């Protein structure tokens, strides 16, 4: 085995010596324990590990690990036919210190090694307060009846887009998206994720009556069959954007910012730009796909209006146009401007939002929580009397149906789920998306890794997730005595805060529990 030959170089010397540029590998974070009684040397783990962590030594007829390479993706644990593998933390780690935590120390080692910006995948993992977890729901007792969703109809259908100014025979109807569950699959581009995963998202969206979002990487020709449930994105890099691309969609989305990295552009490393990715993005194979930080034709709300109407012209005013921004300070004023610029849907992406690759420091420290952004934007649009002109989609850190119910009551029309969708198909949150070696075949297009996720399997699991959530949403609506999502939207009287200050309660527009 060639892996063995590589490893043998280190092992045969008998001395492990981290090179000067490799000190951050000097301390292993995880320790792979293998029960020798159970290990049958089938080498499944060796073949499954893409991080060069697991090796076979034919002389000892044993499997062993180079623990410093382990990222705790747990693929070997999952695949082991005899359950022989256990991954633990390595020893004591650095001396306990709440100020200099191991992640802080390791980040410094890594930068001292490389002199570069530290990258991460997934979303912000620091211990900020989660307002969703400090909000509780109301329920009906005695004075008003609760509703049993198994016996009575429960309306889940939602329309996204601009609504008419008033009802009447002469009212002007605008193109709207119809969704059967208030959950849409978040923008994740082909290139950042595998083709199989994107196809799985498309298949699940079609089955469940919702939409998937292509992200900024274009729409692969094989996925144009799913155009009816595709939201296509126009981002600052304009990858894969053409008239044909805009035509093969249900809606178009202008991406201004991303919750995981507000204010900066994207970077898809050249290694991830395979032949198919290059064809879809319309860039040379193997070249870095760099999307600029701003859209260089949008420096103001007026410029945004030009692009929105350029896209509306191109699609003959038949499709809603959405604008996606990261949740930042003054988001309410920005969103108001976006609605006035003509957007039919505004997407707010909170600071917990995921990413295929972002500088760790930006991922962890830039942006604001989606809960307050949503509450503020909804409030502002209502005060200005333009809430009906656009729908609100909340994104960034939606983890469960409870988050969705709370977000609905805070004013959102629908939600994007990205990380939760990845977890439905196997993601273990090891945060290595930026390395393009995803051991679950989700965020990679390497031909040996991508088949690990099959579209049919992904679609089935994603549809199951949405079904489960839809059922829970119906139950929660019922217990509040409501029979439609419409009745809950912006209904903050159904929410109460626990353990929040008055300023936080005011920002969320909710009351203290008990009042």
């Amino acid at each position, binding site marked *: 085995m060639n892996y063995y030959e590589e490893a043998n170089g280190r092992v045969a010397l008998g001395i492990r010596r981290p090179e000067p540029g490799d000190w951050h590998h000097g301390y292993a974070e995880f320790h792979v324990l293998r029960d020798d*009684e*159970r290990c*049958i*040397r*089938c*080498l*499944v783990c060796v*073949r*499954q590990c893409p991080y060069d962590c697991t090796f076979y030594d034919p002389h000892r*007829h044993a499997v062993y690990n180079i623990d410093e390479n382990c990222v705790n993706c747990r693929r070997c644990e999952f*695949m082991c*036919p*005899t359950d022989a593998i256990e991954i633990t933390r390595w020893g004591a780690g650095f001396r306990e210190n709440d100020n200099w935590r191991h992640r802080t120390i390791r980040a410094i080692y890594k930068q001292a090694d490389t002199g570069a910006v530290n990258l991460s995948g997934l979303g912000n993992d620091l211990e900020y307060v989660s307002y969703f977890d400090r909000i509780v729901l109301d329920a009906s007792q005695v004075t008003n009846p609760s509703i049993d969703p198994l016996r009575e109809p429960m309306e889940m259908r939602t329309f996204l887009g601009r609504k008419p100014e008033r009802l009447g025979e002469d009212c002007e109807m605008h193109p709207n998206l119809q969704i059967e569950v208030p959950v849409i699959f978040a923008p994740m581009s082909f290139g950042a994720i595998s083709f199989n995963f994107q196809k799985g998202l498309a298949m699940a969206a079609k089955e469940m009556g919702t939409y998937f979002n292509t992200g900024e990487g274009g729409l692969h020709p094989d996925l144009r069959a799913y155009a009816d449930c595709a939201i296509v994105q126009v981002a600052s890099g304009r990858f894969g954007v053409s008239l044909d691309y805009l035509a093969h969609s249900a809606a178009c989305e202008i991406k201004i910012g991303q919750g995981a990295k507000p204010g900066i552009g994207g970077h898809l490393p050249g290694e991830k730009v395979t032949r198919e990715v290059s064809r879809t993005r319309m860039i040379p194979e193997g070249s870095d796909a760099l999307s600029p930080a701003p859209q260089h034709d949008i420096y103001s709300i007026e410029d945004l209006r030009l692009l929105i109407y350029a896209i509306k012209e191109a699609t003959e005013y038949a499709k809603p146009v959405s604008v996606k921004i990261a949740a930042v300070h003054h988001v309410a004023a920005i969103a108001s401007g976006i609605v006035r610029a003509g957007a039919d849907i505004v997407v707010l992406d909170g600071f917990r939002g995921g990413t295929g690759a972002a500088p760790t420091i930006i991922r962890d420290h830039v942006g604001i929580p989606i809960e307050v952004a949503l509450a503020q934007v909804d409030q502002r649009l209502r005060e200005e009397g333009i809430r009906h002109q656009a729908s609100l989609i909340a994104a960034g850190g939606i983890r469960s149906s409870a988050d969705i119910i709370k977000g609905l009551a805070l004013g959102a029309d629908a939600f994007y789920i990205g990380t939760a969708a990845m977890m439905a198909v196997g993601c273990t949150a090891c945060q290595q998306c930026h390395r393009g070696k995803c051991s679950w*075949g989700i965020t990679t297009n390497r*031909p*040996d*890794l991508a*088949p*690990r996720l*099959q579209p*049919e*399997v992904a679609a089935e699991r994603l549809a199951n997730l949405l079904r489960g959530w839809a059922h829970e949403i119906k139950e929660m609506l019922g217990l509040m005595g409501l029979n439609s999502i419409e009745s809950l939207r912006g209904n903050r009287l159904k929410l109460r805060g626990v353990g929040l200050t008055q300023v936080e309660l005011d920002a969320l527009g909710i009351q203290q529990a008990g009042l």
Partner: protein
Amino acid sequence: MRRVYPLEERCINCHLCEVACIVEHSKTKSPVSAFHVEGLRFNREDSRTVPDPAEALAAGVPKPLTRTIVQTAGYVSVSTNCRHCAEPDCVLACKNGSLYVNEDGRVLLHEDKCVGCWMCIMACRYGAITPNPTRRNVPAVKNNGINHHCDLCPERETPACVWVCPTKALVFEDRDVP
């Protein structure tokens, strides 16, 4: 007749089909025992219950052999096994009738009859037959393991390799072509 067909684009080269095949054709049906204990017993006629993997390795055959073999070339991998042809060349080549086609259409072996002449191996156009060195009916001759090929798991409804495949890269279905 239903056969096991591999889907090349789905195979992830994990070799779990081989593990499942070995376990299914072991005496204990337990992966740990099949790999650690049984191979040793087959070779050494040893009644010890505690095996020594090193000894098993030294004996040459540490475990029962797999009947499906994952072939790899670069990024491409595929699990290959007996095609159970409608008119099997191996059965025609077999000189003492130890290979036969049963009423279901499966190509099977009378294990006690086979003398290990390997004509079936020569005749098989798919290379799906391997010698099984753990079983020799003519001990006087060296290196003459008997015929060893897929039996479609007679004790199971779905063959073990199909059941275990994590990406459903093996399917058990009825097609016109072997």
